[in-house]
């Protein structure tokens, strides 16, 4: 087990956890989202193959009004 930050909240994950899995665990599955890890965009096609690392900072964003 190790910790990552997801939208600035701490999450404990299994050592072989993938990005796809934490998206499910955090409740974002089936939602309209885009993702970055440590400030770098991660395309949807890479979710299942992206293994999380210790202290990764994950940003999951959704549409919102903007000017």
């Amino acid at each position, binding site marked *: 087990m190790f910790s990552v930050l997801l*939208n*600035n909240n701490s999450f404990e994950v299994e050592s072989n956890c993938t990005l796809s899995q934490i998206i499910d665990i*955090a*409740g*974002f599955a089936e*939602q*309209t*989202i*885009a*993702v*970055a890890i440590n*400030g*770098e*965009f991660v*395309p*949807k096609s890479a979710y299942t193959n992206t293994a999380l690392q210790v202290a990764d900072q994950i*940003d*999951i*964003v*959704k*549409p*919102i*009004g*903007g*000017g």
Partner: protein
Amino acid sequence: MNSNASKDDLLTLYDEQFSSRFLLGTALYRSPVEMCDAIKASGSEFITLSLRRQNPQQNDGDAFWQMIKETGCKLLPNTAGCRSAKEAINLAEMSRELFSTPWIKLEVIGDDYNLQPDPFELVIAATELIKRGFKVLPYCTDDLVLCLRLQDAGCQALMPWGAPIGTGQGLLNKYHLNSLRERISDIPLIIDAGIGSPSQAAAALEMGYDAVLLNTAVAKADNPVLMARAFSQAITAGRNGYLAGLMQRRQTASPSTPVLGQPFWQQHQGSNQ
């Protein structure tokens, strides 16, 4: 110029044409329904939106997204809040994937007090995003050299501010804005930010600016739907005024009614007798 000039007078941005010269934001409305009604009243075809962290239990993002899609408008995601080229580039990539669009309103903020764009990071980000195939509309200051650099980077339209975001102070530096329009005449210029009233939008179009992008002035009006319509009419009026050709300003009065044949006038009155 014919009387229906506005019907045939299209705005071209990156080889795409728009009949409306009014780009509208989707933030700050009192309700999503009010937002949609205002968008409809504005006649806008191009609306801005953004991405933010949200709690997965909140369905606001998905509900908002569904309503936005139903407007049928073209989407212009922004990079609001980004403070470096790296942040803006990555948020642009996230927006391109989520919204399925190459359009990006590029914002890189350099100062928290007046939300002034960071010119150095902006050029870096614009250069990279153009290389990656984005259609970049950079939110920039009215600095001529910065705008020339952004054009050199490949931007096919620029969006200088009228005044800082959300201030409603209108076109604060008309000298700079006039200079920009005179020097950069080959690509569209859009006034983005600072517009507070329909008359200010009309003034921008009368100066030769191609379009206006705003949000707060409509969303925070007592009646956003009526204000959206007012801005639409003002933008059309300003554009038509520009196309029609404004008269030259003069320092001295010049009578519009013919002097010849003036009644009650006698020869001796003109000779100080």
